[in-house]
């Protein structure tokens, strides 16, 4: 192994210094030492970082100036370099301040150091290269802290979701049992009303009261049905729904072939709550029961850069201007047990919106606005996509 036991003398050092000044402009700290840890060169960068001038430190023992470097943790590895071994690298994790350099804020510069064999003046020297990794260290630490915080939040959210799910399951169960019990009572009251009805002559005041009670029971039953439908909202995960299949099925069920159905739909699938089918049913039932003499239903889809528009229009009496927004309010149009309010809620679960844009007197036109990510048009040879 090569070792230079002899210290570098001053004329040799001065001879080399002229060449080593080429290290001055480098943005890394460069220190040259001999086998005895005597500083032979100290570039401007390390002088600036440490506040120690070259003239002050050259010729002195680096270990005297920085006593931690006298520890075997450093010397055993630096000595290996002088003995002909490979370069030694010192990470900021274990040696953050190889040559301490104070910053303005009182901290010390985070450093990565390497000790590299260096031949000069016919001597085997060691070149210490100090890199500033302060910003990198701060950024990585910040990133780690942010990630730890995000992970903790995710954990907390998971726990909250599980608790909510459990609470929701219990509430649904309670709601279902309560609804069932009320319906049982309502059925009982219907039975007694039937018995009472037979005791009063048609047109009598008592018979009028019986009819009013029956009507109010019907309203209660309808409310319970709405409550049942609302309870199912969002329980199942959204699915890709084939619009044509749903519309054809709903038209057949609601109108039983009594109207003309114009289908202008492409092979459209929409990502929506499974109750999407009920929304379409509801729109067609509204056309049947509120549309007057509806004889034609047209279903179409258009899309450009913005949301896709699924439209269902009829040739009935349409919706009056003053009712166009009101029909989507809670408590309006619950005849079928699923008003437009609920339809709107179902659609909103996957970001879909609904509006009425028909011309009063010429027919109703309901438009469902579908964000681009929530619909797909399948070519004939493609199956239904599994997820958005």
């Amino acid at each position, binding site marked *: *192994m*090569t070792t230079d036991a002899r210290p570098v003398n001053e004329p040799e050092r001065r001879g080399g210094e002229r060449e080593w000044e080429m290290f001055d402009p480098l943005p890394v700290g460069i220190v040259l030492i001999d086998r005895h840890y005597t500083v032979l060169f100290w570039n401007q960068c390390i002088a600036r970082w440490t506040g120690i001038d070259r003239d002050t430190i050259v010729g002195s023992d680096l270990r005297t100036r920085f006593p931690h470097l006298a520890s*075997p*943790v450093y010397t*055993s*590895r630096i000595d*290996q370099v002088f*003995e*002909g*071994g*490979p*370069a*030694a*690298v*010192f*990470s*900021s*994790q*274990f040696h953050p301040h190889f040559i301490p350099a104070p910053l303005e804020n009182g901290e010390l510069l985070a450093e*990565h150091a*390497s000790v*590299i*064999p260096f031949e000069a003046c016919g001597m085997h020297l060691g070149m210490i290269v100090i890199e500033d*990794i302060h910003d*990198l*260290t701060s950024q*990585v*630490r910040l*990133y*780690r802290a942010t*990630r*730890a915080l995000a*992970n903790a939040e995710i954990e907390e959210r998971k726990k909250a979701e599980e608790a909510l799910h459990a609470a929701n399951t219990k509430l649904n169960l309670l709601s279902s049992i309560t609804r069932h019990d009320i319906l049982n009572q309502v059925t009982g009251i219907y039975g007694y009303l039937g018995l009472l009805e037979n005791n009063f002559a048609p047109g009598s005041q008592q018979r009028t009261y019986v009819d009013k009670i029956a009507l109010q029971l019907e309203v209660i039953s309808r409310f319970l049905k709405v409550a049942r439908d609302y309870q199912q909202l969002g329980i199942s995960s959204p699915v890709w729904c084939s619009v044509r299949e749903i519309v054809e099925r709903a038209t057949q069920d609601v109108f039983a072939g009594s109207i003309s159905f114009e289908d202008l739909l492409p092979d459209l699938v929409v990502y929506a709550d499974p109750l999407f089918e009920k929304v379409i049913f509801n729109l067609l039932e509204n056309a049947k029961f509120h549309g007057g003499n509806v004889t034609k239903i047209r279903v179409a889809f258009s899309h450009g850069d913005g949301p896709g528009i699924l439209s269902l229009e009829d040739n009935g009496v349409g919706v009056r201007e003053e009712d166009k927004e009101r029909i989507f309010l809670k408590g309006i149009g619950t005849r079928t047990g699923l008003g437009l309010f609920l339809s709107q809620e179902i659609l909103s679960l996957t970001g879909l919106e609904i509006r009425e844009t028909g011309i009063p007197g010429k027919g109703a036109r309901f438009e469902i606005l579908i964000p681009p990510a929530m619909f797909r048009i399948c070519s004939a040879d493609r199956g239904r996509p599994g997820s958005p």
Partner: protein
Amino acid sequence: MEIDAESLDAVRELINIGVGRAAGMLNEMTGCTIRLRVPMIQILTLSELAGAPHINAGSAQATVSLTFNGPLSGMSALVFPQDSAAALVMLLSGEPHESPELDALRIETLKEVGNIVINSVMGSIANLLAHHLTYSLPRYQEIPVLLLARSANNPCFHDRIILADTRFTLEDHEIEGSILLILEVGSLETLLDATRGVSP
């Protein structure tokens, strides 16, 4: 080339001396109690390396490597699966073992650990050869071992590979990695001749 069991034992001992020294340095540096040993050693061709168990030569691994030239030429590398590398660094640095991810600081730390192990092993070999070797700077790469071997960019490197399983044991954890010595044609003979020269 036939390699007798005695020569293989001598190479294992040589590498064990190096890793033993590295373990001492790591203990002193980190304050952890680390045991580092090489239980098994194999001499393989590149195609045999591809099929070697444990090494998973086709998928990316965390590697610290350096090349050397002289009477013995080739590449020396310390190789870990990435999760193991991150786990090792976190154990050594006392970080909580929450996210075994190799970020820039952990890579820098792993490079130092690799540097210590490789330097100690190469130190043992150089001492045995009693010749000076020249070395490149250590390099960290996430790369399949087969590509690493080829990246030496010297067709002669693909002669023989000394594959040494390494086991770092600390705090009830045992982390397995490998030391690879990818040798240029003729270098293995040089090394084996040197070991025979010191054998009793």
